[in-house]
């Protein structure tokens, strides 16, 4: 990464005069935000989908992704990682206003509730204490963990949505896009759980994935079109995605790998009447996951600020 990006030059003729990219969350150590955000989506999505079809293995993997991939990477990104406790009550009451603090709270709730749910859903443990005790706890905490997982999955969208200076992010649809993309990723991953011999039905997951993919394609198109209307700077962001420096990530990563490949594979399986072969499925899952990374990269990378003096600069 160039030193230019890291060091704050007194670039009088560019800085906030020309539309300027958001850098803190994508360049240099900001890559960690990208990765952590992707894992957030994957983990929360997988957990929610697993809850829906009641797959213990899915729940476990989703929980592990959030707790051991998303959170540590996120905290490691902090300038002062050991102060992370300061973001939580009783040290801070920021959750009242800050989606960031809320997100951390969601994660903490999710970690706790999810853990209890997982323990009370673990077959050996259930056998030990009996269904009658385990089940109510399992379902109660399942609901709690489910809501927390939704919070975890969607808060990133609200965080970005809140940034008024970046018109491309400042769209009401953003949290929905992020949430639904997460769920779609969950469907992708759950197929993997099924394939690996876990307690999930691949066929069902494929069916769900098919609809969500369609919805997501529609959603992303709608998002790009509607964002394009809101401001000239958002249009710039879209141009960067479609034919600018982020075009490769957008077309190859997000559109081709993340949407087209899984959709084609699921269509193949639909018309061939039954399940696609495992090789195709593995390709679909891998493509889906790469697509999840590409989506987050695209969103973070094209965060462009409105210049400071719109009167002259025509933005």
């Amino acid at each position, binding site marked *: 990464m160039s*030193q*230019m990006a890291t*060091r704050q*030059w*007194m670039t*009088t*003729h560019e800085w906030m005069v020309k539309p300027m990219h958001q850098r803190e969350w994508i360049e240099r150590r900001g890559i960690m935000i990208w990765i952590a955000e992707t894992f957030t989506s994957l983990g929360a999505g997988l957990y929610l989908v697993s809850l829906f079809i009641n797959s213990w293995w899915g729940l476990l993997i989703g929980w592990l992704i959030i707790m051991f991939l998303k959170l540590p990477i996120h905290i490691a990104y902090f300038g002062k990682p050991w102060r992370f406790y300061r973001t939580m009550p009783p040290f801070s009451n920021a959750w009242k206003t800050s989606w960031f603090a809320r997100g951390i709270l969601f994660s903490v709730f999710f970690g706790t509730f999810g853990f209890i749910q997982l323990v009370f859903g673990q077959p050996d443990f259930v056998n030990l204490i009996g269904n009658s005790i385990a089940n109510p706890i399992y379902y109660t905490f399942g609901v709690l963990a489910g809501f927390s997982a939704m919070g975890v999955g969607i808060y990133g969208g609200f965080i970005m949505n809140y940034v008024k200076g970046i018109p491309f992010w400042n769209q009401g649809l953003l949290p929905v896009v992020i949430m639904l993309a997460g769920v779609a990723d969950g469907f992708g991953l759950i197929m993997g759980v099924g394939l690996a011999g876990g307690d999930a039905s691949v066929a069902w997951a494929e069916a769900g994935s098919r609809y969500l993919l369609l919805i997501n394609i529609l959603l992303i198109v709608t998002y790009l079109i509607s964002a394009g209307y809101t401001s000239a700077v958002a249009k710039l962001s879209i141009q960067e995605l479609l034919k600018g420096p982020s075009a490769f990530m957008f077309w190859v990563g997000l559109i081709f790998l993340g949407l087209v490949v899984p959709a084609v594979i699921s269509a193949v399986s639909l018309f061939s009447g039954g399940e696609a072969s495992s090789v195709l499925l593995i390709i679909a899952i891998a493509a889906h996951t790469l697509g999840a990374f590409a989506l987050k990269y695209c969103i973070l990378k094209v965060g462009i600020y409105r210049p400071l003096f719109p009167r002259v600069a025509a933005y």
Partner: protein
Amino acid sequence: MTEKKIIKTTCKSCHGGCGVLVEVTDGVITHIEGNPDSTTNGTMCAKGLSSIQHIDNPYRITHPYKRAGEKGEGKWKQISWEEALDTIAAKIKEASEKYGPWTVATSQGTGRGYNRYTHRFSRSMGSANVISPGYICHSPRIGLYGLITGYGRLYCDYHGWGGVFPKTQISWAKQLEISSADSEMCYWYMKSLDYCKNLIVIDPRATAYTSRATLWLQPRPGTDAALALGMINTIIQEGLWDKEFVENWTYGFEELKKRAEEYPVEKVEEITWVPKEKIIQAARLFAVDTPGCIQIGSSLERQANCGQTLRAIIDLMGICGNIERPGSMVSWVLPETGLIEDVFNEIPLTDEMRSHIYGGDKFKMGAARTCNPDTIIREFNKGEIPIRVWISVGGQQIVHMASTKQVVEGLKKVDFMVQVDQFWGPMAEISDIVLPAAHWLEMDDIYDMHPRFMIEAHNKCVDPPGEAQSDAWIFNEIGRRVSPKYWFKDVETLLDYELRKAPVSWKQFSEKIISGCFGPDQVYYKYKTDYWRKGGGFPTPTGKMELYSTVLENLGYDPLPFFEEPGESPYSTPELAKEYPLVLTTGFRSPFYFLAQYRNIPWLRSFMEYPTMQINPETAKKLGIEDGDFVWIESPRGKIIQKARLFPGIDPRVVAATANWFYPEAPAQGFRGVFISNPNVLTDNNHQDPMYGSPDLTCLLCKVYKCQPEELKDPQYADIFTKEHGGRPWAW
């Protein structure tokens, strides 16, 4: 125990004069800010504030050095002060005896408080060959004011001491707002603008004030004389001149009128590219809304028509009666005790000294007290050796003189060169002995630059690095060895001597007074009283303000102003203009650099990393240049690289290049990158002003084309352009 004290001193980061408070905690400077109890009321600019980065700057020269390799090789051997001074003294004596004292030259950069030492030093040795950039900066102005009004220290009275502020201000090729240069203080100027009715800015490129002024005239560089004459003509044709003043107190109005008639606005529009409506409007504003004043910038003095341009502008002031009136141009009243700077010219110039001034026979105005530097370079290139020993302080002659390559070739032939400097620059690299100089935070001295309304003290705040010494000390020490008669036992005695006409000693002055301002005692309308002449009048041969200069007539020059095309222009050299179609002007000011200084101060370099040339987006588009590209600027003499800034505020036919640029971070070989980006590589030293010898530095022809990325990889300058920030981790 922390010991904290506040030291009051005076900034000298440009020509200086701003009062400074320096907080010193346990011998370390921990804070700098303006002194509210000074003429500048506690304000300071980025240059002055960044002085803090001169302290402990690892690139400072800390000890005397002797050259140990070839010139420009960068090999040095540390020597003691004793050895350095004795060697210098011996060399001067040797050259003096063998070839005559006039072969010993003293050179300086722009006046930074050492003027009085360089001139005294040179004269004490019996040489008048002082090499100073005066001929392209300030001294033509002073000289011609003196010629026409009889007194040289004519300043804009924007201080309001006479009861009014100027109603109309013309800022002619000047950006006083970003430099307190030439002893005008930007603080006062900007304050006066609050009460100004019309601000007219005359500048070929947009500046902070052009876009906010009442009127902006954008002339072709080098045509200011025509513009001034056009304005004079308009004023006379419309009968707007100050009849009372012109009739009673000026000489030669009819002749001037006749001359001005040769410059009708239509013709002037053609010459200057300024729409005639604007010329007429500017002339009317200046003539009607009086009092008014004209700030003249030194860019006008870097043209081969400099003398006549200034003459025309001064005549313009004269016919509008904007002389000696409160709020117009006022000559400063000398204090009863005379000038502190008398130390400068106390030792008289003998006829013998005068007769050996280089260029003295040709440039009768400019080379009367100092030599014409370009003449010396030409002599060298003819194979003569006009200068045997060259003592240089502060200045970078290599950088500021026309035709850099010739200057370097010439200077290589000097037998013995000494450079007194703070940092390694081109002049240090070509020298035989380099002496470490102290910064203004590290020295005791008197601030009396281009003496006018104020006198201030530089008080030492911290010790200089290593063995560095103040200019006063260095000149006194060399002086003591060469001509002990005129020099003193130590610096304090010298400073006491400078203050001999005042009832205080240096010690008392530095402790008690520090900053004093004499302005409010101005006398206006001096010509109406017996001040200059019994019964009133100006101290000129005719006793009047000489619109028609009898002195110039006697010297063999045209007594009336006229316009002459620059040596190179689309009109004077149309053939050349086919190959080099753009007019190049150089030397505009950056608010965070002072001339060749401060490229090695990280805080200041962070504001502008590479020399930047301004080009109109229209022209740039035709040439395929984008904002931020490196481009070649080429003239018949050579080519340089600068970074392009697309700038709508400049005429499509003109480009402006940042001047005085060398790279302190570049290796000594190649003289610290002086040939890479310095526009003087492009200038010519043959076409000179007949009065002052000023070459065409601000108006020449060039072509511009994009610098290909592989060209930047040339090993000569690859480090500067291709490495991350030129391999200067500090320059950001």
